């Protein structure tokens, strides 16, 4: 028979001064773990939030990102007539050939320079990306060297306010609008007219094609047709799939989060162990009394493990609460796929909170195990005689 759970809970709380250090230590570990994982989750969410499930994206075979892809105009001429592609009322194929260029621009407040992804996009390409909307100013006019930048990037880069301009390639580009990508990867891009982009950056090739097939079956057939046609050497896949795979940037952050958490948790385990050794040491006679009353060793161990686990749970809750403060905070990092600045938000998801709490409890239980076993193994008479 186990000891009542209230025994463990009250013991954990009654010595709150001595247990505070452990609670704070575990809170710190969980905070770092959850925060780094929420960073990775934010990047993944940004990529996973991008694209229309009906669209198909085509890049050069072997290219890991649109910006590293080059597709000839000849390929565009051939593919646009494929019968699998949906057409407008006027019979025009719904396909957009985009140009992506990386440009180096200064950050605000002399914060150094960083790469920004510039997308040359066609009117059709804008229609195919309805999640992108204009939040300030107006859309660019082709031929006037105008650009629309992400509102989130505008807060981070110099000369990105409406009416300001910056030099890139052979041209001076004027910012005429701010776009909002709805939490997608487009929040990390600047858009201008596709033909103008090819002219400014002297590009004879396209970077990618975005296609709307007639229907699901046509989409499957189109992917197979492009992939299997030996003339093209192109890779076609659903747009959402492409962006879902663009989570390479999140991997090292996740790894770092896990690594740091493991390293710090070793310290937290020792902190918990220290606290529980002290708690058990101060209660040796009490434990002896429980044994005298008939409670078995196992009951004592379980009661102490619950106590340690509960303490750690409190620490975990505090850590999650601290991490949650950053939920939704927008930040940016270098994207390993595009080597450009990518903007995203911290995402403290319910799953991350559960993981954080579970992690905390594991730390607490591991830290408590040795003191608990040691206390339970003490002969009853020795425990009773303890001062």
């Amino acid at each position, binding site marked *: 028979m186990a000891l009542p759970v*209230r025994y463990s809970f009250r013991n954990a709380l009654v010595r709150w001064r001595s247990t505070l250090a452990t609670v704070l230590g575990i809170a710190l570990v969980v905070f770092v773990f959850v925060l780094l994982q929420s960073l990775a989750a934010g990047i993944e969410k940004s990529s996973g939030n991008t694209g229309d499930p009906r669209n198909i994206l085509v890049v050069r075979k072997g290219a890991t990102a649109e910006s590293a892809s080059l597709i000839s105009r000849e390929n565009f001429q051939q593919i646009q007539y494929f019968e699998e592609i949906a057409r407008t009322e006027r019979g025009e194929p719904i396909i957009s050939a985009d140009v992506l260029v990386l440009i180096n621009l200064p950050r605000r407040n002399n914060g150094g320079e960083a790469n920004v992804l510039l997308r040359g996009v066609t009117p059709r390409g804008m229609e195919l990306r309805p999640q992108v909307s204009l939040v300030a100013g107006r859309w660019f006019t082709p031929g006037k060297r105008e650009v629309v930048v992400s509102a989130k990037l505008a807060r981070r880069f110099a000369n990105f306010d409406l009416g300001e301009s910056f030099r890139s390639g052979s041209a001076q580009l004027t910012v005429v609008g701010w776009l909002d990508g709805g939490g997608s990867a487009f929040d990390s891009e600047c858009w201008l007219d596709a033909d103008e982009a090819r002219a400014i950056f002297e590009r004879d090739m396209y970077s990618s094609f975005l296609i709307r097939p007639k229907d699901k079956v046509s989409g499957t057939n189109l992917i197979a047709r492009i992939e299997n046609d030996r003339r093209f050497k192109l890779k076609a896949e659903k747009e959402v799939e492409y962006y879902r795979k663009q989570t390479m940037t999140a991997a090292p952050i996740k790894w770092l989060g896990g690594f740091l958490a493991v390293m710090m948790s070793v310290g937290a385990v020792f902190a918990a162990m220290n606290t529980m050794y002290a708690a058990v040491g101060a209660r040796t006679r009490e434990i002896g009394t429980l044994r005298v009353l008939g409670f078995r060793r196992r009951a004592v161990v379980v009661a102490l493990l619950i106590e340690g686990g509960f303490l750690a749970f409190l620490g975990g809750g505090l850590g999650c609460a601290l991490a949650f403060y950053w939920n939704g905070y927008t930040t940016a990092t270098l994207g390993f796929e595009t080597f450009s600045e990518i903007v995203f938000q911290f995402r403290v998801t319910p799953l991350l909170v559960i993981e954080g709490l579970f992690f905390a409890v594991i730390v607490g239980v591991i830290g408590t195990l040795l003191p608990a076993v040691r206390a339970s193994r003490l002969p009853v008479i020795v425990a009773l005689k303890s001062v």
Partner: protein
Amino acid sequence: MFVRFMAAEAEEPIVQIRELFKVYQQGEINVTALNGISLDIARGEFLTLMGPSGSGKSTLLHIIAGVDRPSSGSCHVQGIDVTALNESELADWRNHNVGFVFQTFNLIPVLTAYENVELPLLLTRLSSGERRRQVQTALELVGLADRQHHLPRQLSGGQEQRVAIARALVTDPSLIVADEPTGNLDSHSAQDVLTILQSLSRSAGKTVIMVTHDPKAAAYGSRSVHLEKGELSN
């Protein structure tokens, strides 16, 4: 040479101790705490164990109560040789057969008086209603029914010891062992505690074994035995 003290009653003694030895190892020296004790204790007796410090009286009490083990010899309580039981069996046996009263009360500080008294009953198959009734009865018996929701720190020393007696009684054990139960109490509280222990023996038929230094406390018992250097003396 061992002195035997046999109970007067014809009934089978509740405690039968034969040739009990307890030797401690202190470094390279052997310390004999009990030196061949043989003793019978009758059912319903209030036996006091007296003697100077280090005479072995607490050790004897602990062996009778199944808390400590002898080096050799036997100790039968209600016909069961407690020296032959393993740890788990001893834990169960103590829970069902022995009530403990300690000098320092040994209440669990984070539990209320009611919860402290209820603790030994959690190891039984009693329903919560039955447990409640028994706890109330035990607390009423020691006159602390109105203090059941108090934590130990909110009680006086005498009240704490009465809660400890209620805890010792609550499982209705036939044997109650008390190790200097009045050692930490003022004379008034000590008198209350001794009166309760005496009435448990006289009215409820419990066998009470009490270790004490105090001859006044020993006077409450029905019989007193003295130990000196691990041997019984009279």
